[in-house]
């Protein structure tokens, strides 16, 4: 077992990618993803990581090169943020449809305008429907662990879908945290070499990326959707095996003090740690508040989620992204929809908070929980509210 040492999360992620023995990296610099790819370049330059690092001229080319690389049978990694992710948008849909398991870390950052380098989930929420496996890390250790898991799941022959590990820009990517990097031997035990069934090889020619005429397009998409939903079981299994090898246990939905909760906060990403403090304080004040955190966002862990919120009266969903003029934030609408068919479902109230690097404090979470209590008795007037707006 490796030693637990203080490391910047981005550096630890790069080290984890190295331990995954990637063959090809194609990336373009964008804040706050830079430290990850800078450290990977260093590892390649020093000969510590035997990989090709393609210094592409844009994120669009980064993801395009990644697709070419995976299609040829190489384990492939990239990382980006915000505008860079948006520039990849077109190609992101093609990766899962061609069943090309790239792994990408997204250091989440607000989208322009106004231009902001700071953290929220606006970038990744715009990519909700791309068909990639998507997880959100709460802390540095989890970020690293999710990278091993992402390769393991994505490249599994029953899965063959690309995967994104989301980490909050700056608030996670640039933090120095105690992180335990496992021994190489453990990683090798967990992550077998990448051996795709289909790849570009003149010894066995195949056509990849053909035209889908109307007679087959629907069937192709149906097949993709079924396979994606089936990936769920492999995702869970891979976390079980992760526990066996590394000793840490991960589930798609995390709960905190939910035993007898009547109000719960729901959040994704690193803010959950602040929210836990708020939950503790409110518990001390005698309020039955709990916390639900989605680690897995796609495929959506419907059953586990419904189980987690059972018995609640109000669920306060905190979105880190805005969907202007919609009936809620992206997570809020998703959760409402997930609960609609559930008898005795809790009331879902939706807060938009922490946009473009705005701090969300313990007090903010307490305020949201308090408002949730108010909404226990009366319906909210609006489908969502923004928190912390200066008047």
């Amino acid at each position, binding site marked *: 077992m490796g030693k637990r040492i203080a490391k910047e999360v981005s550096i630890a992620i790069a080290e984890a990618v190295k331990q995954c023995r990637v063959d090809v990296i194609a990336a373009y610099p964008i804040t706050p993803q830079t430290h990850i790819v800078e450290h990977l370049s260093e590892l390649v330059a020093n000969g510590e990581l035997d990989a090709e690092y393609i210094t592409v001229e844009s994120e669009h080319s980064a993801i395009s090169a990644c697709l070419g690389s995976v299609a040829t049978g190489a384990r492939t990694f990239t990382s980006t943020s915000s505008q860079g992710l948006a520039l990849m948008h077109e190609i992101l849909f093609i990766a899962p449809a061609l069943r090309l398991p790239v792994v990408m870390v997204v250091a989440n950052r607000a989208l322009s305008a106004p231009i902001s380098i700071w953290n929220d989930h606006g970038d990744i929420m715009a990519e909700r429907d791309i068909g990639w496996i998507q997880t959100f890390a709460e802390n540095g250790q989890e970020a690293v662990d999710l990278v091993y898991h992402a390769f393991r799941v994505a490249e599994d022959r029953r899965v063959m879908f690309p995967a994104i590990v989301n980490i909050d820009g700056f608030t996670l990517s640039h933090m120095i945290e105690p992180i335990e990097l496992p021994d190489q031997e453990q990683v090798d035990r967990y992550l077998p070499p990448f051996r795709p069934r289909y790849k570009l090889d003149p010894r066995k020619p195949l056509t990849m990326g*053909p035209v889908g005429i109307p007679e087959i397009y629907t069937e192709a998409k149906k097949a993709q959707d079924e396979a994606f939903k089936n990936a769920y079981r492999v995702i869970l299994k891979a976390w079980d095996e992760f526990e066996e090898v590394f000793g840490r246990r991960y589930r798609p939905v995390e709960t905190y003090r939910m035993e007898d909760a009547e109000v719960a906060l729901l959040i994704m990403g690193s803010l959950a740690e602040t929210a836990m403090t708020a939950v503790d304080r409110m518990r001390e004040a005698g309020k039955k508040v709990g916390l639900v955190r989605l680690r897995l966002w796609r495929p959506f862990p419907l059953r586990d989620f419904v189980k987690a919120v059972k018995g609640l009266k109000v669920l306060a969903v905190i979105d880190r992204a805005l969907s202007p003029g919609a009936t809620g934030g992206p997570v809020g609408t998703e959760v409402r929809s997930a609960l609609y068919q559930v008898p005795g479902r809790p009331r879902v109230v939706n807060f938009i908070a922490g946009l473009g690097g705005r701090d969300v404090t313990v007090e903010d979470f307490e305020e949201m929980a308090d408002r949730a209590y108010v909404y226990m008795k009366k319906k909210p007037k609006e489908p969502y509210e923004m928190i912390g707006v200066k008047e």
Partner: protein
Amino acid sequence: MLKEWAKFKGFSAKNLPKEEPFAPGHRACQGCGEVLALRLALKALGMNVIAISATGCMEIISSPFPYTSWRVPWLHVAFENAAAVASGVEAALRALKRKGRFPRNRRVDVVAFAGDGGTADIGLQALSGALERGHDLVYICLDNEAYMNTGVQRSGCTPYGAMTTTSPPGKKSIGQMTWKKNVPAIAAAHGIPYVATATPAFFLDLMNKVKKAALVEGPAYVHIYSPCPTGWGTKGEDSITLAKLAVETRIFPLYEVIEGKYYITRKITKPKPVEEYLKRQRRFRHLTEEEIRKIQARVDAEYERLLRLAECL
């Protein structure tokens, strides 16, 4: 002569490869000069190839699932990124060979195909990046001088005066108002080892250039003039004649740029007037004599420039 070509004797009518990496039965229009160029290029390259196509005519006519014309491994991702996708394939092969997961001594040529829009316009950035990074790949632009797949819209490679659906001649326009973008010169400006122009009318020349491009270590760019009867308003049986005329009128000169040096591979000492080329095509039918004179003057000047490039070096 580059050292990589030492063992290459050149193709002639007697030693043409038997293999056809691009199968017949595809859905291209009758008389398509582009698919002919594609077939010849692949014939020159052989079976040890990984091909990447940009979205465009050649991609849709060759791959309506479950049919395929590709007898070599083929990948299509999107429109503007053929060069970037090819970069990834090439890098992966290099990594896998080094790590012993692909036979080290097995030669595989990575080739990217794109049309003129996918090269000169939307794909120019990805192309520039790939050339600058020095990947060992061949990039082939199949230039039919407009966006034919979407219904004949103008591109940066559409010649001056040509009628397209987005450069229609009218009271205030003569059609395409700009001169053809010189993509081979842009490619050459990257300082890559090999750039060439070709047309299917001189098919051995085309095949030899493509093969030389593949043999070169590092990036190579081949720009192939590809007549399009549908988009140009020409007869299918005229495609080869037109491709020949384009060279003989000096509108599309054939040359190579080897490590920065220009070599004209087919010198045209007695050029035919451009009118002979223009008048056979509906896309130029509206041009006045004055416009034709203007085109002639431009073609003469461009050829002079090319001669100077070839001579002074």
